[in-house]
């Protein structure tokens, strides 16, 4: 990697200030950024570490019934502490990467990066969560804006993610055998007023809601409701590990399995 300075603020306010420096970049768990730096694919002048900010860590149930997870909370903590209130999300967190990744990677880092094959964006979008930053709140539907692209402004930090808790939810993942990221994964969340389905790993545009499946499942929450629904492989990622057609097929299988796991 190239040389850079490191700042480790202890409050969100100080972090925002530090990020105003030229070529500054936030560092959360570093599970994407550090390999990028090692490959010399990025040249920040300063890394602002968010891991010393205690107000950004932790899982709590808010008075409005939403589960609030600090942006700097590592996956392992979510896997353990969200289990009681939101087991579907805890299960997603428990299956990200490997133990080393789960002990370093954070929810804020994951959603801010919006890797098209990351797990969290599917959970966040299917839950209809709200992304809280140092300056505003953004609905998940408006947050994810395509592969590695989000609504975040320069220097804006994800401080918390607020999850409405569905009646039930399940994340089904089919892994890419080398990276163990999702080749395709679907998060199905059933609320009392409808079903949301978010898909990761599949689309050239990153995480997306499969609205046809949502409509069908909202009317009839059964595997049968999904029969005949098809996605277009043409807009799906096509690579060494799976063609667009195969990924489109897997979206159907993963969604169906999530539903079957919930009924």
């Amino acid at each position, binding site marked *: 990697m190239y040389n850079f300075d490191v700042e480790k603020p202890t409050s969100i306010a100080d972090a925002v200030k530090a990020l105003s420096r030229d070529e500054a970049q936030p560092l959360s768990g570093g599970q994407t950024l550090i390999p990028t730096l090692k*490959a*010399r694919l990025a040249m920040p002048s300063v890394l602002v570490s968010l891991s010393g900010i205690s107000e950004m860590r932790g899982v709590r149930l808010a008075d409005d019934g939403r589960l609030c997870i600090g942006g700097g909370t590592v996956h392992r903590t979510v896997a353990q502490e969200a289990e009681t209130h939101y087991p579907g999300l805890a299960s997603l967190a428990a299956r990200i990467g490997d133990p080393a990744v789960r002990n370093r990677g954070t929810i804020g880092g994951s959603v801010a990066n919006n890797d098209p094959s990351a797990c969290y964006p599917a959970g966040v979008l299917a839950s209809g969560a709200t992304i809280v930053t140092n300056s505003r709140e953004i609905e998940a539907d408006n947050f994810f804006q395509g592969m590695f692209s989000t609504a975040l402004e320069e220097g804006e930090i994800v401080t918390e993610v607020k999850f409405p808790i569905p009646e039930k939810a399940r994340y089904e993942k*089919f892994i890419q*055998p*080398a990276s163990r990221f999702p080749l395709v994964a679907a998060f199905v969340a059933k609320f009392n007023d409808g079903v949301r389905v978010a898909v990761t790993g599949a689309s050239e545009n990153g995480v997306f809601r499969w609205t046809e499946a949502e409509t069908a499942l909202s009317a009839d929450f059964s595997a049968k409701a999904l029969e005949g629904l098809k996605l277009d492989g043409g807009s799906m990622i096509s690579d*060494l590990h*799976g063609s667009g057609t*195969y990924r489109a*097929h*897997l979206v159907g299988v993963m969604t169906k399995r999530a539903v079957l796991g919930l009924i």
Partner: protein
Amino acid sequence: MPKDGGIGASSKRREDIRFLTGEGNYTDDINLRGQAYVFFLRSDIAHGTLNSVDTSAAESMPGVVKIFTGADFTEVGSIPCGWQITDKHGEVMQEPRHPVLAFGKVRHVGEPIAAVVAETLGQARDAAEAIEVDISELPAVIDMKQAVKEGAPKVHDDLTSNLCYDWGFVEENKAAVDKAFEDAHHVTTLELVNNRLVANPMEPRVAVGDYARGTGDHTLYTTSQNPHVIRLLMGAFVLGIPEHKLRVVAPDVGGGFGTKIFHYQEEAFCTFAAKACNRPVKWTSSRSEAFMSDAHGRDHVTKIQMALDADNNFTALRTDTYANMGAYLSTFAPSVPTWLHGTLMAGNYKTPLIYVNVKAVFTNTVPVDAYRGAGRPEATYQLERLVDKCAHELGVDPIALRRQNFITEFPYATPVAVEYDTGDYIATMDKLEEIADIAGFEARRKESEAKGKLRGFGVNCYIEACGIAPSNLVGQLGARAGLYESATVRVNATGGLVVMTGSHSHGQGHETAFPQVIAEMIGIDESMIEIVHGDTANTPMGMGTYGSRSLAVGGSAMVRATEKIIAKAKKIASHLLEASEGDIELKDGAFSVAGTDKSVAWGDVTLAAYVPHNYPLEDIEPGLEETAFYDPSNFTYPSGAYACEVELDPETGHVTIERFAAADDFGNIVNPMIVSGQVHGGIAQGIGQALMENCAYDSDGQLLSASYMDYAMPRASDLPFYTVDHSCQTPCTHNPLGVKGCGEAGAIGSPPAVVNAVLDAMRSGGKNVDHIDMPVTPQRVWAAMNG
């Protein structure tokens, strides 16, 4: 009762104590005073004319010691190839120059163009980014069949084409083979790909060059399976350094799998640069560099055909294979698809007529060379897939068809130039049927089906040639080396022994297994014996470790040297006991006079050898140290039968290995635990090849699987607990230990069983698929089932 020492005991691996506690001494642990670091600027273009390499801006960067380009190596020799193949027309193969640093052209992504030596690796890398390289890109040649077409762009402009050689074997049999096909009752044809692999040893390659100006001595520390071979190849052919001024040390080495046999440019560079810079120069490969600079493995495209008579007897076999050499000839590359592959095409069967054609092709890819099994997995895979296909076409049981065609009498001279000394293929198949619990398969299949899964069972046999190799034979076949092995056994005054072996351990466990042999011969404790290897300064000239040869060849040399030691010790004992030499017996660490209670301990005899006060100095010299060189009279032929059981998810195409059983015949066994470990590791690599590993290039020659993000290695969770058995033992007839070698069997014997099982699972789901290429990824399975 299991033994607790000597031959046949599962002694714990003594080397693991240091490996597992971080006390190993790997090449990267070696840091010399004044050491500088080199970073190689590598081509990101597969094929192009190298117009210029401008280092002027880089030279003034902080910390830069010296920058080298191809122009600095024009007076230096080509990286040599150790095997020359003669083609079916009697012509020798085309052999291009292989420069240390690219000169004139770049020929694969990853080829080193320039090398920056600097005070730190970071500075070297910074300076490398300031080097301006001007390359005019040329069309890349990637597909082998396209590469040999008229008018294809040439990888090497000074060669007549991209065809390295067109080998026919046995050329004299060709007409008879073709005739047998005309007369055949049934012909089965199969076209397949043996996928390109990256070896991925846990320890990447490292080289540290050192030069002593005061004495003119060079030292190279390197991650090698055969330091003497590197010393000879690099000293004599590349840098012109005589062996007595060049020491090569390969200390603890963290896995090789073949890819650390070869002499690489980086070794020659560090040795050369250490003198040019007058300071030690170190290179440590990054994992990314390893993907594009370690020799790759396999990469064959084959059409194979079997002719059968009306009674399902195999009557003839013929194959056409394209074998990828990559952009240059790596050290043993030409031998892999020929003598290590064609000679094994008989497999376990008495097919009377065989013809093998191999076209070796240059492409704009990383050089391809031996990888665990080297040619023998390619032979086994195509033959055992073909036999399975025969069985299904004929509607007969695949195991029965194999049994019917087994070779049953030994020695057996195959129609492909080798003679199997021993084997019992019926016994290993019987054992396999027992340990694989074939009888219980249908019940397990029903359980899978109840879960919506398909279950498949696949089997294959294998034969391999190990204990490489008789020197006079391989010399006739084009080897530019002898393939004997050496050992010096030094007995110390108080009775302990040090064995300096020409073999090299990079995980195999020589430090444990070799002492077991000597402990058995003398009747002393294994702890009294130490193994030294990996340093040309203190071991006799040896050929190193590959081709499952260490115990069969290196161990035999050690036995011969120990026999000389015992013979001399008996002379000393006879003097001490005042008895006739012929009456002296060695047992349990003591020499005794037959029929008496007179005896003298091993330690008293060894002490006498070094303190020769009461000693027959007029007859024998003091001291107790002997060297032996052992040249085998034949290959050894391990064989076996493997079975795989898979579960297939028809909705996703995902395949899991549920059971895997291996029944091997390795002849005599020194350490059963180490043998099991070798088989386990080999099967893991074979399953990796069959299901996951895929080194893929795009049509521009860019490596698509250049990191672990895209190159899928098998992990523990991908593998079942294996059932391995090596109780079927037909000892090798021509080496003193009766051993055959076990290092490669798992990797050779497992891929066809996996693929055969996957196809069986598909058939059980009503999908009759003739063939599916490795790696059998979920996408491929799904496409095959829905195509």
